[in-house]
């Protein structure tokens, strides 16, 4: 298992899902891919498909329509998997928390491993969130990051 456990930490493929965010956080997520931040240094690749993803990066508050989709996507990710809620809205619902159609943060629907606050969350914070998720995974597997 050693090589697989190590490889898991070096190759987190993320899938980005936008619940009903204002697109602020989404732009920051995409900014991570740009030459300035270049998350591919850490083996992080943005996948368009839950079946290839290891880490689900969710932005925006969950509303009544996206809850179903979020759950479906989460179930289609093969384990082991991590979930990162990005932005204030993703963590708690943010300014939308008492809207008629909003359920709240991502953790209302699926288990969340890392919360990255910020409005919008900065790319550094998002990368840090992924690293935290990896640290959690490393701890679970008993491997040093």
């Amino acid at each position: 298992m050693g090589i697989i456990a190590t490889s898991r930490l070096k190759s987190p493929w993320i899938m980005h899902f936008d619940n009903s965010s204002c697109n602020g956080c989404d732009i920051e997520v995409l900014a991570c891919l740009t030459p300035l931040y270049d998350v591919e240094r850490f083996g992080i690749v943005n996948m368009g498909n839950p079946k290839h993803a290891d880490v689900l990066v969710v932005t925006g508050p969950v509303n009544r329509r996206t809850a179903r989709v979020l759950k479906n996507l989460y179930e289609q990710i093969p384990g082991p998997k991590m979930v990162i809620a990005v932005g204030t809205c993703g963590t708690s619902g943010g300014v939308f928390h008492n809207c008629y159609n909003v359920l709240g943060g991502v953790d209302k629907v699926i288990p969340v491993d890392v919360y990255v606050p910020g409005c919008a969350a900065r790319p550094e914070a998002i990368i840090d969130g992924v690293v935290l998720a990896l640290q959690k995974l490393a701890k679970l597997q008993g491997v040093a990051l």
Partner: protein
Amino acid sequence: MNAWIIAIVTVIVAPFIGGLLAGIDRRITARLQGRFGPPILQPFYDFFKLLGKAKIASSRLQLIWIYGYLVFMVTALLFLVLKLDLLLLVFVIGFAGVSFALGGFSSKSPYSHIGANRELMQMLAYEPVLLLFALGVFAVNGSFLISEIFNNPTPLLARLWPIFIAVLLILTIKLRKSPFDLATSHHGHQELIKGIMTEYSGPYYALIQLTEWYEYVLLLGLVYIFWANPWWAGLIVAAVAYILELLIDNITARMTVGWAVKFVWSVGLVLCVLNLIYFWLLPIKGVS
């Protein structure tokens, strides 16, 4: 007995070379885009991570075909290293391609369905060129055997350079690079998700990656035989061709599949046919 050793060594060593090539690809691509890029060993990390993921599938059939893809691709590579028949090698690659496309068809996913159809269209584009490449080799050597290419002191490139250009086009398709990155899509997530590979995940996706590594070695091997004597000349040709492919990948946009077929037929096929016509105006070696 010697052939067995070569075969076993190839099966073991080829994935390492292929994986390194993929790593170099990602590194160079990143540099071309002004990024630092992942470690060279990144493809291996990805591979082992995928092996350790939970197995999920959307049908049993798609898993069967993926083994066919792997096994026939390895067979094609063995044909090359054992210096067997080039024409048959192309048909073996054909089986691998069909098997992969059928894997894409074997689930009711719109994305893999489109990807599989596109894969077939790409086969329509590249099969004739590869077959004509084999006919061109025959025109030079009077034999379809790859061993005869190694026996011939004059490089193929000297007399088959139009076919070489056409094969470079095919290389772009087979390496799934822009502008022909149509069936599986490295970059077109919004449009095609991951094409044929959409429904493959975890260990099965790792199998596809493994097959692609074998394929990298096979394809660059096909480029290598254009200058088989002396042994290092082919390596240089293959390396230059590979860098060229990466460059093309980064400076072109993805095009449509209809365009791909038209382009390859009107440029690649015509180059091959012109090259062959040139040869048929001259006598084939040894034929009275």
